[in-house]
């Protein structure tokens, strides 16, 4: 038998982690409890974070929206602040799992699990999100791109906890785009996905573009060369098609049960071409 603790505050969490050094914190359990059932993880005890008040909220903090690590996808999707300020993140969160998975799973869990297929990671990258990490006596902020360093690997230090994610509000002129390709619509890991934030002038000229691909590399893939090439241009099919080979070269997908690496490369380029949906009418 394994102890399961239900702390209500961060102070209680720190005490528990001190007293039970082998304990694993979890929130929704949609990743960790599966890993335990499969014998891949065997923590000495579990600290369930779902009732820790400081981790469950959503707040406006100046020009950022702060999302508590243990806020469920459903909680975030139901927040008027998140709906209004972070529609791109909402679009990605609606593709996670299924309704009960979204009632249980949390943004913090998705970030800390650091799966190459984590649905929220590409939008958090292009939005310039920072993670807030803490232990009893320390707090620090880290850009998401520096936090997730490989499949399942992060810079979370022993005894440290993800408190939340601070997401800058994109400018009003920014247009978000998200597309996920999976084997089916629900209950499916991404085969490839693209999240984009585009700052467009009224005449459709791209002022700046931030693009991030998911599921086609050990972590999220950015292609600065393509972002630079879009600046000052319209999102025309021809231009986008001419840049697709650069995307195919930049991604580093693997073969797995869901798709081959070769297929993922092609899809990655095609996801870029789909940005023409935001461009001038053909």
């Amino acid at each position, binding site marked *: 038998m*394994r102890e399961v603790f239900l702390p209500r505050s961060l102070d209680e969490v720190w005490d528990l982690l001190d007293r039970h050094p082998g304990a694993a914190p979890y929130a929704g*359990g949609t990743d960790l*409890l599966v890993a335990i059932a499969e014998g891949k993880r065997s923590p000495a005890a579990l600290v*369930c974070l779902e009732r820790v008040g400081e981790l469950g909220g959503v707040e406006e903090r100046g020009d950022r929206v702060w999302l508590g690590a243990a806020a469920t996808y459903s909680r975030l999707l139901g927040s008027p602040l998140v709906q209004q300020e972070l529609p791109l993140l909402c679009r990605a969160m609606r593709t996670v799992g299924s309704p009960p998975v979204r*009632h249980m799973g949390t943004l913090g869990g998705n970030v800390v699990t650091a799966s190459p297929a984590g649905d929220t990671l590409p939008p958090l990258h292009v939005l310039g999100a920072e993670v807030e990490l803490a232990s009893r006596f320390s707090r620090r902020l880290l850009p998401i791109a520096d936090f997730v360093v490989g499949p399942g690997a992060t810079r979370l230090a022993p005894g440290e906890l993800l408190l939340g994610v601070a997401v800058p509000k994109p400018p009003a002129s920014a247009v978000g785009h998200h597309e996920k390709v999976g084997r089916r*619509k629900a*209950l499916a890991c991404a085969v490839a996905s693209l999240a984009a934030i585009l700052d467009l002038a009224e005449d459709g000229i791209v002022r700046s573009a931030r693009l991030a691909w998911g599921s086609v590399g050990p972590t999220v893939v950015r292609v600065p060369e393509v972002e630079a090439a879009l600046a000052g241009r319209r999102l025309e099919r021809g231009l986008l098609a001419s840049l697709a080979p650069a995307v195919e070269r930049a991604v580093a997908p693997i073969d797995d049960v869901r798709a081959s690496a070769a297929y993922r490369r092609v899809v990655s380029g095609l996801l870029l071409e789909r940005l023409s949906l935001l461009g001038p009418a053909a």
Partner: protein
Amino acid sequence: MRLELVLNDAPAALDVPPDRRVVDLLREELGLKGTKESCGAGDCGACTILVDGESRLSCLMLAAQLQGRAVTTVEGLSPDGSHPLQETFAAHGAVQCGYCTPGMLLAAADLLARDPDPDREAIREGLSGNLCRCTGYVKIVDAVAAASAATVGVPDQRKR
């Protein structure tokens, strides 16, 4: 641990290992065998229950997480099978082998609590976490549409 909860509208208290999976607690300790287990990994919806009215997967919850919560299993939808969803599932032939049915009913109850008048696309989305390997989805969607019509008092036909 001493677990206290409200189970199908009645207070309950029992001694359980805190890391007992909720699906095992319900089926084996409490004899509520309406809740089914299929994949055990959150991919099929067979073990869906309501916790404080919201759908959850009982294979991915531990007993300790139920402390102070209100749990509804399929047995708690109604004392005699007269919940609108149970009646429309029967009337529309939405049950084949029946293994997915408890999870479907509770996922549908969760959906109708959030959206009392869903269109067919919203029903499909609401049930997207529940697999029916008999593939009887059309009649299941029909049944949920009819139950929402029954609940909100509009003609079923409007939903087609």
